[in-house]
């Protein structure tokens, strides 16, 4: 299996930091009333998007979820146009029509965040079908949550991918909750990966807080897919540090502070930075510099967004049909 080079490790780190800072600032902007609508933040889960996306090019496809910023950033999304979209501006990736729940970029191979839980996997199967049909070695990765694994759409998609041996990877980001419902209250299993056998594909569990572990297991699954050996179900155990929606959410007490603290101790970025320092790949100061640089980029992105015009009302009926 491919061992990540030092450059690759730094690249993964950068992707994670980009997500963390973007999401943290997006949360602030929402609390300041600058981002309307529902904002589902990815903080805590960065190692999953970064570890997977480090294997992909713009020609590989991904489908995402309502919690989609992290996936888009890891796939190369630019802050300026992303903030512009969240702010509802004409310069946003979706011209202000999509917002957080539909943020997307076809040129980067990102088939959209999705407001419908479970809608992504069938679309990813279509993208995987497409790359196979055209005889390329491109893959399609579908991200979805533990909650989404109970939607029939996941079941149908997984079965079809295995049947057709499609180059699809199903990445279940198991953060332990679907909204305010703990996993134990939405399914009678512990590992979503156990579902893989029922479709005839491998199921793998990985520590979703460990970027290198994600990188390695995802690499194996993606390689398998590229070789035409079919799909894999990869379950990453992770946690979201913010609430289901926004930062503080609705103020419901469905998780204990102790649980949150336990997981925060395993902050994927802190753990990764400790490891990179140990390996001599990225020192403390260098890491700090990355954070600073990214924060500057985020601020520039916000400025761009704030300076951007709102869509003209006349554009309302555009983009309905080709």
């Amino acid at each position, binding site marked *: 299996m491919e061992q990540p080079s030092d450059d690759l490790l730094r690249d993964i780190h950068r992707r994670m930091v980009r997500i963390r800072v973007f999401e943290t600032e997006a949360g602030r902007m929402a609390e300041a009333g600058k981002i309307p609508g529902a904002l589902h933040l990815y903080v805590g889960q960065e190692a999953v998007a970064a570890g997977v996306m480090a294997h992909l090019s713009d020609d590989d496809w991904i489908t995402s979820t309502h919690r989609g910023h992290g996936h888009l950033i890891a796939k190369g999304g630019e802050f300026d146009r992303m903030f512009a979209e969240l702010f*509802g501006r004409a310069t946003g990736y979706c011209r202000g029509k999509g917002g957080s729940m539909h943020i997307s970029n076809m040129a980067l191979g990102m088939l959209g965040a*999705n*407001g419908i839980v479970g809608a992504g996997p069938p679309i990813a199967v279509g993208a995987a079908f497409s790359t196979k049909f055209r005889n390329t070695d491109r893959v399609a990765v579908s991200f979805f949550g533990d909650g989404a694994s109970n939607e029939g759409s996941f079941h149908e998609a997984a079965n079809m991918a295995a049947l057709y041996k499609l180059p699809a990877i199903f990445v279940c980001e198991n953060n332990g909750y679907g909204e305010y419902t703990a996993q134990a209250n939405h399914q009678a299993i512990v590992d979503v990966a156990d579902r893989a056998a029922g479709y005839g594909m491998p199921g793998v569990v990985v520590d979703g807080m460990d970027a290198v572990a994600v990188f390695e297991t995802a690499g194996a699954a993606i390689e398998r897919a590229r070789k035409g050996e079919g799909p894999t179900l990869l379950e990453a155990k992770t946690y979201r540090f913010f609430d289901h929606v926004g930062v503080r959410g*609705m103020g419901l007490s469905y998780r204990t502070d102790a649980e949150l603290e336990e997981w925060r101790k395993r902050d994927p970025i802190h753990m990764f930075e400790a490891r990179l320092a140990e390996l001599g790949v990225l020192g403390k100061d260098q890491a700090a510099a990355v954070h600073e640089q990214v924060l500057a980029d985020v601020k520039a992105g916000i400025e761009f967004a704030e300076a951007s015009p*709102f869509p003209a*009302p006349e*554009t309302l*009926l555009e983009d*309905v049909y080709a």
Partner: protein
Amino acid sequence: MAERETTYVAAIAEGAKAILAEQENSFVAGEDVAGAGGVFGSYRGLLDEFGPRRVIDTPISEEGIVGLGVGAAATGLRPVIDIMFMDFMGECMDEIANQMAKMRYMFGGAATLPITVVTMSGAGMNMAAQHSQSLEVWICHLPGLKVVAPSTPYDAKGLLIAAARDDNPVFVVMNKLSLRNRGPVPETAYEIPIGKANIVREGADLTLVAYSRMVAEALAAADALAAEGVEAEVVDLRSLQPLDTATVVDSVRKTHRAIVVHEAVRFAGLGGEIAAQIQEFAFDDLDAPVGRVGAPFSPVPFSSVLEQAYLPDTGKIVAEARALLGG
């Protein structure tokens, strides 16, 4: 004594509570209805009061949830099923259209399905294309279902209770932008009859037919029109299926002009049916074509500028009225 007031969302919760209290075979099931009390707060406090046997969190499995409701209803229970956003009906239309709506008929009357489905419609909160729809025409077109759409806290509670007491599947289509609206709500478990429209303002010059949140817009339009000397009568349909054609037609016979208003996409929306019925039954009384105000032919956009341009509102109703009256 001043009338007791609550919000629309509190009225829903009161209605749900009244149902659970009065019907021992009833239960509420849906995503996050128990521990969280519903993501809109519609079921707040019910888990504590009635326990996990009666108030049930489900997996994210809309087809399974509705199927559970169908099976439970057919075998003697009285389920109240929550579909968080009406947009999610796409995930469970088979259980709705092919099972719930038809089981009784297909079985020659042998099955009875006293099931209530509560769901949220409407835009205006920057929730974009998949969390803002008004898809009531899908269900109004299905024999076997009833559909109601409350415009006020009072109606939200009363129609919900009526739905749960009805022995048929009834959809109660709530409106998310109305959740914080306040209005008088009696503490008792009262019922608003399904199938009866409500004349919420009388007028002689024009009938505005509306439902759900658009009733408030129609009332505001009536105010604006009154300033121009036009007295609009406003009919709140309350019930979409069955439709109270008689009340609507009687009003139009008096006013000679009508505009149907809904937030749903205008094309192939329920407004077409209502307009068609008005001209069918009041043809000779009409001084102008029946007007319609609805959303334009696009998905619901995210950005506020676009969403406001998209939404039917007072201004658009007034404009349509002026066109009709001037024409």
